[in-house]
C-alpha cells in the first residue's frame, strides 16, 4: 500500500539520522509517539513533536520510559501505528513492555540510539553494546526483530521497514541505531509517497460474534488484528493465553503459544549487504557505524593484497544463521568489529559452527574504531 502523503517529506534533504528516523516513522504512517528525553535519541521525538501537529496525530512526552513503552501499545490497540525512542538506560526500563508487546503480538517500533554503557555510561558518545539485550533483554522466550542502519538514509529507510515488519509479523521491532549514525548529517532522499510501500495494519474480516477469536493465527501463524471500539469485545492479556485471548495457564497452551510466537518469525528476511565475498579468505562482519569504518579497513586490506569480503548485518535479529554458516564453509575467518566487548561476534562464532575462526575486534565504546585496528585483525585473520 502506498504511504500517506501527509507524512512524507518528499525531497532531497541534508539531515541527521535522528531526524531521518522521525521522517521514516511519519512516512510509514506512525501517528502516535510517546517518549522520554534521553541523549542521544531525544531529537527523534523532538522532531516528531514539531511535525505531528501538522500531519495529524499525537505526541506525548510520558513521565518515564516504562510509561512510554506501554503508552505506544495502548495507542496501537486504539488504532494507530506507534513508536517510542530511547537509549541504553531507557531501553533497560522498557524491557518488560517489549515482552508484553511480543506476548500480546502488538506491532510497534522501539528505536534505541545506542550510547556508551553500561549504566549511565557515555550519554553523548556511541556504543553498540545493547545488541544482545535487544534479543534477550526481556524475560522469557520471546522473539523480536532488530534492524541496524548505518547512515541517515538508512535511518529513514529502515524505520519504514521496521514498521512494515512489525505489522506483517505482529511483533515489536527494534531499530538499533548508534549515537554517530543518529547525529551524523548526510544526504537523505525521501521519495514521493506513491513510491513508498507501507504494510497496512491487517485487521480481521471476521464478524464480531461469539465465535471470534482474536488470537487465532492465520496460515502465516500471525493472527489478524482488531482494534478497541470496533465492537469485538476482545480481551488481551500478558498472561499465557489461548486463541480466545483468555488466560490459560497450563503447559499445553504455553507450549503452543510460545512456539508459535517464535515460529511466526521464521520468514523474517535477513537483510544484509555483501560485497567481494567470492574467493575471499576473510569476511568482515559489521553493522551500524562500525561498518562505515570497516569499509575503509577493507579498502586498506585489499590494497595490501588481502582477499577480504564484507558482510554488513542489517537484520541483526533474527540472526542470519544460514548466511553466516554457508559463508563459514568458504572462508578462513570472520573479523567482527563492534563497539562492544563481543556480542554479535558470539553469534557469528556460533553460526560458523567451527568451520571458520571468528576474531572479534572489541571496543568499549565512546568513539569509533580506527580503520587500522580493524585492518590489523583482517591481516591476522588472513594469515
Amino acid at each position, binding site marked *: 500500500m502506498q504511504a500517506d502523503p501527509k507524512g512524507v517529506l518528499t525531497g532531497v534533504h541534508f539531515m541527521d539520522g535522528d531526524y531521518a528516523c522521525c521522517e521514516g516513522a511519519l512516512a510509514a504512517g506512525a501517528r*502516535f509517539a510517546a517518549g522520554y528525553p534521553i541523549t542521544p535519541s531525544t531529537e527523534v521525538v523532538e522532531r516528531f513533536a514539531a511535525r505531528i*501537529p501538522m500531519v495529524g496525530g*499525537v505526541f506525548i512526552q510520558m513521565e518515564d520510559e516504562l510509561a512510554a513503552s*506501554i503508552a505506544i501499545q495502548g495507542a496501537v490497540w*486504539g*488504532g494507530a501505528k506507534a513508536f517510542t525512542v530511547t537509549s541504553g538506560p531507557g531501553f533497560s526500563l522498557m524491557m518488560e513492555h517489549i515482552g508484553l508487546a511480543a506476548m500480546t503480538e502488538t506491532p510497534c517500533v522501539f528505536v534505541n540510539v545506542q550510547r556508551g554503557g553500561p549504566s549511565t555510561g557515555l550519554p553523548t558518545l556511541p556504543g553498540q553494546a545493547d545488541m544482545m539485550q535487544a534479543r534477550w533483554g526481556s524475560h522469557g522466550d520471546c522473539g523480536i526483530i532488530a534492524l541496524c542502519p548505518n547512515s541517515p538514509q538508512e535511518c529513514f529507510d529502515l524505520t519504514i521497514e521496521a514498521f512494515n515488519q512489525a505489522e506483517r509479523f505482529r511483533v515489536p521491532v527494534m531499530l538499533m541505531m548508534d549515537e554517530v549514525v543518529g547525529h551524523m548529517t548526510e544526504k537523505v532522499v525521501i521519495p514521493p509517497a506513491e513510491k513508498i510501500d507501507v504494510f497496512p495494519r491487517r485487521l480481521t474480516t471476521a464478524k464480531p460474534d461469539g465465535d471470534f477469536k482474536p488470537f487465532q493465527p492465520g496460515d502465516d501463524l500471525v493472527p489478524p488484528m482488531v482494534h478497541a*471500539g470496533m465492537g469485538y469485545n476482545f*480481551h488481551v*492479556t500478558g498472561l499465557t493465553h489461548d486463541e480466545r485471548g483468555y*488466560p490459560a495457564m497450563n503447559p499445553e497452551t504455553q507450549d503452543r503459544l510460545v512456539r508459535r510466537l517464535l515460529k511466526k518469525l521464521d520468514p523474517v528476511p535477513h537483510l544484509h549487504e555483501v560485497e567481494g565475498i567470492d574467493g575471499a579468505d576473510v569476511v568482515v562482519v559489521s553493522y551500524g557505524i562500525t561498518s562505515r569504518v570497516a569499509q575503509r579497513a577493507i579498502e586498506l586490506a585489499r590494497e595490501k593484497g588481502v582477499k577480504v569480503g564484507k558482510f554488513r548485518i542489517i537484520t541483526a535479529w533474527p540472526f542470519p544463521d544460514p548466511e553466516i554458516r554457508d559463508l563459514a564453509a568458504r572462508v578462513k575467518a570472520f573479523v567482527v568489529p563492534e563497539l562492544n566487548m563481543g556480542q554479535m561476534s558470539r553469534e557469528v562464532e556460533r553460526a560458523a559452527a567451527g568451520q571458520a575462526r571468528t576474531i572479534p575486534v572489541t571496543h568499549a565504546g565512546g568513539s569509533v574504531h580506527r580503520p587500522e585496528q580493524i585492518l590489523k585483525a583482517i591481516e591476522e585473520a588472513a594469515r
Partner: protein
Amino acid sequence: MSVVCIENPAEQILRMDRIPHIWCPGCGIGTTVNCFARALVDSKVDLRKVAVVSGIGCTGRVAGYTKLDSFHTTHGRAIPFATGLKLANPSLQVVVYSGDGDLFAIGGNHMIHAARRNLDLKVVCVNNLVYAMTGGQTGPATPDHVITTTAPYGTYEPAFNLPQLVEAAGACYVARWTTFHVRQLARSMSEMFARRGFCFIEVLSPCPTLYQRRNKMGDGLDAMKSYKELSKTRHGAPTSEVALSRAGEIVVGKFVDRQRPDYGDLMRGQLSETLGDRYAEPEEACTCG
C-alpha cells in the same frame, strides 16, 4: 405487571464462559463489578466504545471477566496504556480498573501524572488494603499496626490518603465508597462516565482470606458490617481529612467534582491557537468497520 428482564443485569457485561471467577468468598471485587455493570447500563454508554484496562492483582482480573474490549496489562502500567489508548481513539470511554498496590505503589508515578494532565480516564481503585494476589503483603494503603506477610510484627509505615493524593495531583472527580455502599458506588460510576477528565473512585473492599484473617477481623461479612457501622458520608469533605486508619471512621462520599479542561482540550487548544490553519486535528486512528 409482567417481567421483561430475567437475566442477571451483570451478565450483560460479563464473559459468562469465564464464570465462576477466581475471587475468594466474601471478596468485594465482584460487588464492585455489579455496580460497574449497572452503572454502564443505566448511563446508556455505548458498550462497544467502553474499554477496560487493568493492571496486575486481584482487582486486575476484572478486565478478564468483562465482556468489553479489555486489556490486562503489566503491573502498575494500566494508566499509561490507557493514556495511549484514549489518545489514539478519543471516542473510547476508557476505564482503568485496578487495585491499591498496582495503582499507587508501582503505578504511583503514572497515577499522579495522568491526574496532573487531567487525561479523560475513569479510574476505579478497589482498595483492599493489601497486595492480595501475591498473598497479603503491605501496600501503600495498608493502615498501620496491622499484620501483613512482609510486616509480620505489624506495619509501621504511614499510608497514603488516596483521595488527597489524587486531588492534589489534579483529578477533577474524586470519590470514595465501600462495597457496602452499592447504590452510591453505582451512581458515582455513572457520574464519572458523564464527566470528561481524570476521575477517581476509591472503593474500600474486604480481603477476607488475607487481610481480615491475619488481623482477626472476621470474614467478608464482618468487614461489610464494619463499613456500614464506621462510614460517614461527607460529600465535599476536604480530602486532607479523609485518611483511613485501622479501625477508625471511614469517610465516604464525593469529595471533588470540579471543572478543568481535559488533556485533549488542552492539547488541541494550544496547537490550534499556535498553528492556526496549519494544525491538522489528530484523526481518529481507529479504522472501524
